[in-house]
């Protein structure tokens, strides 16, 4: 039943001779919440602007429901955008801002009033019709920007860091509301953020980007549990990334010891990145630990303690439900399933 609504093929974007997007291919499944995640400057906005029709590709194709729309101007595309800086019309009141797209479609005034009313209700801003844009807070402006886009019932909604300017509490609220809207309205959302937590909690599919390239596409669980490379592992939540050597299938050496692991298919004695999540490390007594280190500091995080442990110069981050003395020597164990072996990425 899964239906690809947008398909980007080998997209290359250049500015001033510099490649900003390097051959990006991406299929967006209809009615999904898809997030483009990556550090600032990695090309998320540019990818969104290609889909919206505001950026040109040096090469590549863009399909919408199987039709190539590469050369279609923005006003003819069945997508709408929630811009990073809201971009509301300062000369129009809130009602007219939301009605803008409907007036272009020449809908009857009764229909416009009904739909604008519905949208104001959806974003919880009833009674604000006559207010001017300048009288609104950032959060309210964002709601109007969302309403202005959604009122057109687009097949796909593009959102460029829509919550970036909001404070933490408001951001959490809006995350829940946006997810609810997306599910209720059954619209495809393509959502840009550099906040990994936001990406993991809201998305059906996460697209991790770096330096104009896609690193990994998958469900939040895939991305978190099976990161494809050290960059993804590090970007998605905290990770310990240690240099290691893959002696043979299922045997890796790091931190001065050999460990059994579940990965295979590497060159003999290939240098690799070993990734271990902080919550996957078990603290044991010194004599029972495969790795031994000194606790350097410990911070209480509410559900668990987070400590930094120095072992042979590498600072391990460990999450544990029990506290340890700073300066004490502890042992650490990790099960084979929790050792993730990755090729060294060529980009670094």
């Amino acid at each position, binding site marked *: 039943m899964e239906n690809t609504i947008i398909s980007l093929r080998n997209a290359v974007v250049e500015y001033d001779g510099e490649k900003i997007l390097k051959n990006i291919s991406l299929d967006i499944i209809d009615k999904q919440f898809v997030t483009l995640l990556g550090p600032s400057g990695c090309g998320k906005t540019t990818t969104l602007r290609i889909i*919206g029709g505001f950026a040109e590709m040096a090469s590549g194709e863009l399909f919408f429901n199987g039709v190539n729309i590469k050369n279609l101007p923005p006003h003819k595309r069945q997508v709408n*955008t929630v811009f990073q800086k809201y*971009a509301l019309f300062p*000369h129009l009141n809130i009602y007219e801002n939301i009605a803008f797209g409907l007036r272009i479609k020449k809908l009857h005034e009764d229909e416009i009033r009904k739909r604008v009313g519905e949208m104001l209700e959806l974003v919880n801003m009833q009674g604000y019709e006559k207010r001017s844009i300048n009288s609104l807070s950032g959060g309210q402006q964002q709601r109007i920007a969302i309403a202005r886009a959604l009122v057109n019932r687009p097949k796909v909604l593009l959102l460029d860091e829509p919550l970036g300017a909001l404070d933490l509490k408001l951001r959490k609220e809006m995350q829940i509301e946006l997810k609810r809207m997306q599910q209720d309205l059954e619209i495809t959302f393509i959502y840009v953020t550099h906040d990994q937590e936001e990406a993991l909690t809201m998305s059906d599919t996460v697209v991790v980007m770096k330096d104009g390239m896609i690193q990994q596409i998958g469900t939040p669980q895939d991305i978190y549990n099976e990161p494809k490379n050290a960059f993804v592992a590090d970007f998605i939540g905290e990770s310990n990334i240690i240099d290691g050597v893959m002696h043979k299938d299922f045997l890796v050496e790091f931190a001065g010891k050999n460990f059994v692991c579940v990965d295979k298919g590497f060159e003999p004695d290939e240098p690799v990145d070993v990734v271990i999540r902080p919550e996957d490390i078990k603290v044991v007594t010194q004599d029972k630990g495969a790795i031994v280190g000194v606790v350097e500091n410990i911070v209480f995080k509410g559900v668990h303690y987070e400590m930094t442990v120095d072992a042979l110069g590498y600072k391990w981050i460990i999450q544990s439900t029990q506290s340890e003395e700073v300066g004490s020597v502890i042992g650490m164990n990790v099960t084979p399933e929790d050792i993730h072996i990755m090729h060294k990425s060529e980009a670094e």
Partner: protein
Amino acid sequence: MKTPRALAIPYAVWVVIFTVVPLGLVIGFAMTDPDGKLTLDNIFAMSDYMSVLFRSILFAIIATVICLILAFPAAYIISRSSAINQSTLIVLLMVPMWINFLLRTYAWMTLLEPNGLINKLLGLIGLGPYNLINNSGAVILGMVYNYLPFMILPLYSVMVKIDQSVIEAAQDLGSNKARLVRKVIFPLSMPGISTGIIAVFVPSVSTFIISRMLGGGTNDLIGDIIEMQFSGNSYNPHLGSAMALVLMIIVLFMMSLFNQFGSEEDVVL
């Protein structure tokens, strides 16, 4: 001690010396006869010049409209170009303004004359010579040429502040180019449009050099008639002041009408 009031004194003095006193003198001259007696005859004498006054206003309106039509796309294009191109284009726009006004208008005379440059060039391809000078068209051309930058600059300065993402939002919501201009760029440029209209209309309606040099004596404007009252054979500063006063009142009246219209427009949109 310096209070804000004390700081305002230099400006107040300035305004009194250069605005209130001259205005008082104009009103004084307009309301008296050569013997110094109060009279309204000078004002009533204006009725002989109604057709000139009407022509001045008409020409100024035409020139202003042409300037607006030319300046709007020009200012928009400048405002959307890169920062370096913006400053280059603005400087290029201002360079002619550094040349003396008389000289610039003389230049047009030599271009437009029956054996001027344009007719010579046309002659090379077997056309003309055409009557390009000493008609109303040449006067309006002179106004448009001289005052076009006064329209472009204020338009540019408001347009450059329009956020690119607002323009993209309009396109995103389905606006084609025409609709984008009509529903977004035009209303957001309104302050620049009204400033530009005033900046072109006021000097156009009161000019006398342009009409004298390019109009050939058959297209005198109210500015020419006023100027004659002060320097010509028909020396009569009382009538001249009355004309200046009436012109000023008409201009103020039109501007306030226009501003009224402009601000209502803002609310409706």
